[in-house]
């Protein structure tokens, strides 16, 4: 569809160019009257005609023998030489053999803008904005910044950009989460010519840039801040109309004013692209998104966003892996990314993504075209590549009437090449920007190649000139075997030569005439005598200046590795499907009333447990035609998948948004990292499900994410939809910043006394917030529809994401799991909950729970504890390993959690400690890491035990799971075997083989000319794919 439109547009343009040149002549001249003139006026009456060229109007339309007329910085007409006639004065340039292309358009540039200095971490907290003026509360929200105000032309950089083919750049100050507006500029010297659209776009990111304000410190905080800003801006708009805004906020004014511009989001890795898309969908926005060069790893998911993706081409360079020890520092992800990164554009294009290339991240613009050619080499069709360089970016920001094609009325931005653009040997010869040429290679360069008869004074010798333009070499041919070098230097038509004769050096200077057939000038011999010299070409050796370079398909592309999911060690190219499995003859720990059943069978199908009993006949349940896998469970133990109530793995860029006493607005689920190898390691320890919690840096932490360990899935697919929403609260030393150093003494609270008040204050505000919403709805009901539509209805209360979450708690729609150690504060929080009319769900850690177990029982709260941790903080000096046993004995729902990626994969052993310390029965101890955490997370109706109808989250062990001799044989998550010893062995072999293959390829790349990074000097590693994003900051 898009291509069709483009094609028809090109035809229209062509049609227009032939018949409407008169109308175009009336377009305003450059430098119109607002600028006084120093001197006499240049009326720009002369047109430039580029003739006989192969004109690539756009990616789909090419005119052989075409003509382009340039007038006053713009393209006046385009057509075949026969179609175009020009009235009035004109210069005609013969472009025979040359190709004309539209100049490149880069949507992500900082050309001409001041450098942004990123804030460094500081010991001194800054909680409030220190920006003066009527601006918003957070310095990372800077919609008031206009790039045009800080843009300063830069002749040197502009020239480099022109020489690299860039005709227009969308520039913005890459600083902050809301970054203000971008400006469309051309890389020309006069700023009045340069700026072609003052406010062309609005820009966003997840990075806070130069802001030293503490909030937000995490990715999830950035996401919340941007969402809250949208809500604030909408409310501000409504409130201002009614005079109720409570003060001017220039940031929100600017934010609202820029909403109709193209919205560009500088994301980065593919996860950030999906995160940006979530925000776009929530607020009905269409983002054009800067990717991070790794988008190919999830091209399908990115295609589904429907966003235009700005694609960088700063491919990683190879590492010197010759030292096998140091080579270990280069991860499989890095190795594979090095190989596949050049395929990024072609994979995205193939998936149907609308792409635009950017030079973002390249050290020099001159690296740009070669990098794009590499993408073409990897299968990106040439016309799609051209579109991604020109018309796609222009259309994406609605600037197709200014740049992006060679069409009448557009800027005269035209690249002249000596061959097809994407052939490796093709050179940019000229670049016309705004109608002014930048000469890169001299089209009129003289061809000196040939045999000459050189006469100096009276002597004549034979001279042969060889080489290529810019690098001529001359030799005297004495006889068939003897030659003498002649120094030769050509500058325009002036030639300087010298050669050694018997008397000494003879120096010559002169000019070249008649297309290099005759050279003549004056010589000075070693004695200082002047004489005449001349050279006459005797044999013309044609140098084909306009080459048709050989197709570069002879560059052999060796086989590429597969994309694996996740894109890290232990990922697989193929996703694991559901299986019908019957496990035979195992000792099954059901964690249900049935207890431990010896010699039992379990039937799994479609991700669910179909039956648990002795001697199952699968065809009874599945029908006789359905295939199933038999797993020998004899001598083995089968348990429910382990559930970790308290985990911090799989989280990207910040587990704490501890910059305010309450960060109820943030959600761990917004910053999941599905590529964390710790997920696989947990599967290897039989863990299938976990609650990923916000940290404990503040009394009211963030919303948690309950995930299934669906290794290989997208971040959003990890979320367990069956779970209730939860939020992390915290008490004690962490929230009062006791161990944060002496500078951290100003954030409220600093004592346990203050912690209580944080809770009361926030809940009381949340209650009022809920009341305001209720009142609004009541009033709205009473208001006439007509008035509401006319904006005369009641003002909707400002949506506050923080209070939203707290109100949900009060309404018992969201549940608290609270980090807790000491009995006094545990007691306190139960009082807060009682007085606010809700029940606490879980105390996590709860190390002094044994001291208030009776009160916990009375309140009805559960406990999720460490098995044996203590003595790391003052508040845990009374922690005892018997805690779980006491809580259990008191009839409290008791779980054992990890809070630690290492311990998380041995939770079965941690459960065994409840047997050791306090004599909890083994079955009950196992429930502490299966059914009980499921209850605490409100997912026990679907998982946590082995029961018909529940998710097939099942672990096979080779011994009693509570014993040190137990090892996981296989882990099933919803019926999919995501870990087994056999598969693990295969993966280990595959990892070694893939590393070996890539290592060899990298080492060989040095012989094929690619530069290697030496470990002795510097190896740059990208442990995460964030790196490109970081370069965007």
């Amino acid at each position, binding site marked *: 569809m898009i291509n069709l439109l483009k094609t028809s547009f090109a035809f229209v343009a062509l049609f227009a160019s032939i018949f409407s040149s008169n109308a175009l002549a009336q377009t305003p001249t450059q430098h119109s009257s607002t600028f006084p003139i120093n001197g006499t006026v240049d009326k720009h009456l002369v047109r430039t005609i580029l003739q006989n060229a192969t004109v690539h109007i756009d990616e789909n339309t090419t005119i052989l023998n075409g003509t382009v007329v340039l007038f006053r910085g713009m393209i006046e007409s385009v057509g075949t030489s026969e179609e175009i006639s020009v009235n009035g004065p004109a210069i005609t340039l013969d472009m025979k053999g040359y190709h004309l292309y539209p100049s490149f358009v880069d949507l992500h540039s900082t050309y001409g803008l001041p450098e942004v200095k990123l804030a460094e971490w500081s010991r001194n907290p800054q909680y409030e904005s220190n920006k003066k003026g009527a601006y918003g509360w957070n310095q990372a929200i800077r919609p008031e910044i206009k790039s045009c105000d800080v843009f300063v032309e830069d002749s040197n950089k502009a020239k480099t950009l022109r020489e690299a083919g860039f005709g227009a750049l969308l520039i913005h100050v890459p600083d902050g989460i809301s970054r203000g507006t971008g400006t469309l500029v051309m890389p020309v010297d006069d700023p009045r010519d340069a700026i072609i659209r003052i406010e062309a776009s609005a820009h966003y990111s997840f990075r806070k840039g130069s802001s030293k304000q503490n909030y937000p410190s995490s990715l999830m905080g950035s996401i919340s801040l941007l969402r809250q800003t949208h809500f604030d801006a909408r409310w501000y708009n409504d409130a201002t109309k009614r005079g109720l805004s409570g003060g001017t906020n220039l940031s929100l004014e600017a934010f609202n004013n820029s909403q109709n511009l193209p919205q560009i989001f500088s994301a980065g890795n593919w996860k950030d692209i999906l995160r940006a898309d979530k925000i776009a969908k929530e607020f009905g926005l269409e983002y054009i998104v800067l990717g991070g060069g790794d988008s190919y790893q999830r091209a399908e998911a990115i295609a589904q966003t429907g966003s235009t993706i700005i694609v960088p081409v700063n491919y990683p360079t190879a590492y010197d892996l010759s030292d096998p*020890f*140091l080579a270990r*520092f280069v*991860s*499989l992800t890095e190795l594979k990314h090095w190989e596949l990164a050049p395929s990024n554009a072609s994979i995205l294009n193939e998936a149907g993504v609308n792409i635009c290339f950017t030079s973002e991240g390249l050290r020099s613009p001159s690296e740009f075209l070669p990098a794009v050619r590499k993408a073409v080499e990897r299968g990106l069709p040439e016309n799609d590549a051209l579109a991604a360089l020109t018309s796609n970016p222009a259309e994406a920001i609605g600037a197709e009437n200014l740049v992006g094609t060679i069409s009448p009325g557009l800027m005269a931005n035209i690249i002249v090449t000596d061959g097809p653009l994407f052939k490796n040997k093709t050179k940019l010869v000229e670049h016309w920007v705004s109608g002014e040429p930048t000469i890169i290679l001299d089209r009129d360069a003289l061809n000196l190649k040939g045999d000459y008869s050189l006469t100096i004074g009276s002597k004549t010798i034979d001279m042969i000139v060889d080489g290529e333009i810019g690098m001529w070499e001359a030799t005297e041919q004495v006889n068939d075997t003897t030659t003498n070098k002649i120094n030769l230097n050509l500058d325009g038509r002036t030639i300087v030569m010298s050669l050694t004769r018997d008397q000494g050096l003879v120096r010559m200077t002169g000019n070249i005439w008649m297309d290099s057939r005759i050279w003549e000038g004056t010589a000075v011999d070693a004695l200082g005598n002047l004489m005449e010299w001349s050279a006459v070409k005797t044999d013309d050796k044609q140098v084909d200046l306009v080459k048709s370079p050989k197709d570069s398909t002879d560059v052999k592309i060796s086989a590429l590795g597969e994309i694996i999911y996740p894109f890290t*060690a*232990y990922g697989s190219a193929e996703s694991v499907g559901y299986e019908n499995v019957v496990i035979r003859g195992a000792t099954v720990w059901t964690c249900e009333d049935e207890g431990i059943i010896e010699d039992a069978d379990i039937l799994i199908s479609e991700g669910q447990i179909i039956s648990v009993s002795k001697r199952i006949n699968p065809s009874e349940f599945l029908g006789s035609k359905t295939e199933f896998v038999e797993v020998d469970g004899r001598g083995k133990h089968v348990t429910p998948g382990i559930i970790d109530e308290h985990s911090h793995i799989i989280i990207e860029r910040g587990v704490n948004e501890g910059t305010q006493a309450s960060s109820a607005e943030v959600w761990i689920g917004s910053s999941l990292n599905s590529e964390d*190898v*710790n997920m696989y390691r947990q599967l*290897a320890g039989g863990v299938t499900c976990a609650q990923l919690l916000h940290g404990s840096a503040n009394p009211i932490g963030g919303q948690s994410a309950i995930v299934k360990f669906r290794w290989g899935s997208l971040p959003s697919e990890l979320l367990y939809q069956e779970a209730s929403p939860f939020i992390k609260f915290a008490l004690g030393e962490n929230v009062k910043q006791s161990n944060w150093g002496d500078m951290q003494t100003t954030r409220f609270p600093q004592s346990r006394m203050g912690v209580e008040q944080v809770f009361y204050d926030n809940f009381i505000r949340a209650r009022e917030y809920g009341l305001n919403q209720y009142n609004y709805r009541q009033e709205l009901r009473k208001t006439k529809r007509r008035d509401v539509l006319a904006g005369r209805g009641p003002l909707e209360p400002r949506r506050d994401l923080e209070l939203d979450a707290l109100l949900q708690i009060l309404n018992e729609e969201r549940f608290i799991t609270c980090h807790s150690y000491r009995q006094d504060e545990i007691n306190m929080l139960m009082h807060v909950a009682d007085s606010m009319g809700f029940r606490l769900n879980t105390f996590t850690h709860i190390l002094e729970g*044994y*001291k208030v*177990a*009776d009160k916990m029982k009375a309140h009805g709260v559960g406990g999720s504890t460490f098995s*044996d*941790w*203590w*003595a*790391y*903080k*003052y508040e845990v*000096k009374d922690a*005892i*390993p*018997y805690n779980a*046993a*006491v809580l259990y*004995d*008191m009839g409290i729902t008791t779980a054992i959690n990890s809070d630690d*990626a*290492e311990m998380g994969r041995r939770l079965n*052993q941690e459960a*065994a*400690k409840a*047997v*050791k*310390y*306090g*004599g*909890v029965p*083994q079955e009950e101890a196992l429930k502490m890491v299966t059914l009980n955490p499921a209850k605490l997370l409100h997912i026990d109706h679907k998982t946590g035990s082995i029961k018909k109808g529940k998710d097939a989250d099942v672990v096979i062990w080779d011994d009693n799971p*509570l*014993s*040190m*001799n*137990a*090892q996981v044989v296989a882990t099933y998550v919803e019926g999919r075997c995501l870990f087994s010893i056999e598969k*693990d062995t295969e993966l280990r072999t595959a*990892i070694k083989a893939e*590393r070996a293959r890539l290592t060899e390829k990298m080492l060989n790349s040095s012989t094929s000319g690619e530069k290697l990074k030496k*470990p002795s*000097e*510097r*190896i740059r*590693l*990208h*442990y995460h794919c*964030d790196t490109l*994003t*970081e370069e965007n900051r």
Partner: protein
Amino acid sequence: MKKIISIVILGLFFTLGLIAQQTPAPEQSRSILILGGTAHLGTGDVIVDAAIGFRAGKIDYVGRAFQVDKSKYDDIIDASGKEIYPGFIVTNSTIGLQEIGAVRASRDQYEVGTFRPNVRSLIAFNTDSEITPTVRTNGVLMGQITPRGGVISGSSGVVHFDGWNWEDAVVKMVDGVHLNWPMTHHKHNRLGKVDIRKSKTYNQSKHEITTYFSEAKAYATANPEASSREMDVRHEGMRGLFDGSLALYVHADDARAISEAVHFKREIGISRMVIIGGYDSYLVADILRENGVSVLLNSVHRLPRFKEDDVDLPYRLPKLLADEGVLFGLQVDARMTEMNTRNLPFYAGTARKYGLTDEQAVMALTRNVAQILGIDATCGSIERGKDATLFISSGDALDIMTNNLTHAFIQGKHIDLDNRQRELYRKFQSKYGIESKDSPK
């Protein structure tokens, strides 16, 4: 019939109620014979239905139950169905030096300065730490107390976990000097960009270390005896490294650093070197073995270092070293190392599951460690003439559920296996009227 002494002591606790610290046991006055049970001698040998006799703190009988002359012993402990082990030894430990990590006033493992071999840990070892009793409850009865930080952190000493004061607890005043090998390459992480670079300071640091050792050696050679004239206390702290009386403990995980350290051993002429950490030691096992360098392996319960590493590599490291013939022991060096010391036996349990034999696993906590520390003449195994530092567990001590000490002896002294945590447990059990399921004795 001989009386079973533990009952008396059990009764004592309930009468005392909550006490701050465990009372050190009196010297062994009556000879004791442990009869029956399976004895893991720490030498690699096992005796089924064993008899272990000891008097005045020393083992005087190791044999089969049916062969022993019971009449020679004052007290007999029936260990039938139980397991007997030498006391486990923790190394590279800060127990007694640090009580609560977050409380600065309770931290004594760091001293100021780069080279401080004369700083010794032993005199800061707090015998009244509340952590130690919880550790010996699980069978860890001895420890190498080790300072931290700097290039040369200081000197470690070896103690028993029972005593009125450090003089009482000492096994070896100073057993070695601890050197933190500088990083050959360092990881540089800024804004998510990670570089691995050859450390700019490595050559300089290595030069400084070499110079420091060379000077100390020159000093020790020129002054065979410590004299009051022109005495350099720092050089004195190094003296034992050159005559073999002290070991040089090199803290290093990286293959390159380990091999550099072994080369350094040859270059300087250090007679005993031990690698502490040693994640990569399996990669350079040949040079370790050939140069007689042993390894005190980092916590078995840890995550693999690299994403690509085998998921169970840390679990299998002991087996890899055992197969290569490298002398090694297990230690606890992770977060919260003090309190985690009570899990040391279970590290061996995991190492056993992942390849070690039963007795290799026990040796990795006992005689191997004693050999490495240079105390194997008196400690680390159940052999005649050695210290009666041993314990009885009602089941497999390397498995969490069955690690349940009924008796423990340090140099024949019958130590108290109660601890403050058990007291707190009992206190609240009685508050709630819950039946006791834990048997402290």
